[in-house]
């Protein structure tokens, strides 16, 4: 069977951009569904998360949505949305948006709340207006956690977009469900491999963007890398204490019930 998978994966016709049922076209479709849903979910959930995080009003919404989002099976949610809204591209997109909102909202909220009270107090104390506190202080420090949510939402959406094919649309799910129906296992496994690679690549892209967006001062890079200006004496006075540089930075978005990644489809 493995030879079949390899020859399917290496078959040049499967990689021609013009081929409707080729990997290139299916990947573009797949990314199209995913990106649309992710952008809509972001536009809805991110500002709401900022607002709830900054004011701490409506926190129960953010927390409960996150918990419910983790316990609800993705497949069931998608099927229920389709049963209510109907079948087609729009219902599938709605279902994906519904899945992507909780992780984005919850982590944006959690990221904002995780910013040290002293930092926010200082921002207010030096005379920042509320919107300046949100965008110049809270958000830049919340990014590591917020990105955890964005990456998680992206992964869920990319994984779940597979279901578009289950209800007759395109995307990489076509290889899985067509292959299962035809008992063409090389096709199934080849599709699964391309899907897995796509997921890893999407995550990688997000992690690169995260590196560009997040300040080295908050994600631990600053305490790890070679110190700039470390040749200079620490201070003019003697007896200055030495900073304790943690060997490993804390893992932002690590484990904590409110920030933990959610795994789905």
């Amino acid at each position, binding site marked *: *069977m*493995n030879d079949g*998978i390899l020859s399917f994966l290496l078959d040049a016709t499967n990689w021609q951009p013009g081929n409707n049922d080729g990997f290139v076209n299916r990947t573009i479709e797949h990314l199209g569904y995913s990106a649309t849903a992710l952008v809509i979910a972001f536009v809805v959930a991110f500002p709401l998360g900022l607002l709830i995080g900054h004011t701490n009003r409506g926190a129960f919404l953010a927390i409960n949505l996150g918990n419910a989002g*983790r*316990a*609800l*099976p*993705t*497949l*069931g*949610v998608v*099927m*229920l949305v*389709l*049963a*209510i809204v*109907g*079948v087609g591209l729009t219902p599938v997109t709605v279902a994906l948006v519904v899945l992507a909102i909780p992780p984005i909202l919850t982590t944006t909220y959690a990221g904002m709340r995780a910013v040290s009270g002293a930092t926010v107090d200082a921002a207010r104390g030096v005379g920042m207006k509320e919107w300046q506190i949100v965008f110049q202080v809270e958000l830049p420090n919340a990014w590591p956690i917020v990105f955890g949510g964005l990456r998680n939402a992206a*992964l869920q959406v*990319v*994984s779940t977009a*597979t279901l578009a094919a*289950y*209800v007759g649309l395109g995307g990489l799910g076509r290889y*899985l*469900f067509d292959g*299962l129906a035809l008992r063409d*296992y090389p096709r*199934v*496994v080849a*599709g*699964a*491999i391309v*899907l*897995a690679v796509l*997921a*890893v690549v999407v*995550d990688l892209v997000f992690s690169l963007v995260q590196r560009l967006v997040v300040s080295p001062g908050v994600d631990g890079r600053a305490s790890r890398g070679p110190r700039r200006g470390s040749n200079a004496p620490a201070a003019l006075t003697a007896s200055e204490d030495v900073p304790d540089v943690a*060997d*490993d930075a804390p*893992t932002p978005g*690590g*484990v*904590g*019930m409110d920030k*933990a*990644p*959610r*795994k*789905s*489809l």
Partner: protein
Amino acid sequence: MEFFSDVRTYLEINHETVLESLVQHIWLALLPVAISFVLALPLGWAVVRYGWLKHPILTLSSVIYTIPSLALFLALPAIIGTSILDPLNVVIALTLYSLALLVRTTADGLASVDQQVVEAATAMGYKPARRWFTVELPLALPVIMAGLRITTVANVSMVTVSALIGIQSLGQLFTRGFQLGFYAPPIVIGLVLSVLLALLADSIIVLVQRLVTPWARVGGAR
């Protein structure tokens, strides 16, 4: 409400299948949690003990976690030679996901133990192995249990995906609803049972956690 009578009717006709699916669902979801918990302890210990292991193991964990479950269910047979309909694929895939998460939480938990306490234990004459089991591990439990809760809830939800490839679980109620032309009753039954199962499993872990870590409840601790 017509909907509720539809639900009742569906259950009257299919209660045996639903029950079977539920039992199978519990196995498929919880067996991987148990296996990965046992495996995560030595791995987490190794990650904390040998610093150089940390980066490769945690990177591998996050890559595994990135792979869509459906893709892994379907790709595993090609790697380990099982049949595509074998529930073993689901157990192995979910064990990998659970392990990926639990190794991280176990390492985090062990690393979070106050070094002064460990040193005090050493000073009192504990040997390393006994100290680990009676001091470090118990103190790391709150964090490890938090990871266990997430894993358990995630697994209960993820097992449903295997219905897409024809493996029995509560997920089959979703595919059944689809086959009946997006008929809502089985979908809702599946959702409710799955969420209740997740909540029940979560509550049991919380109860166990309270019993084994009584110190975490008093004072300001979570």
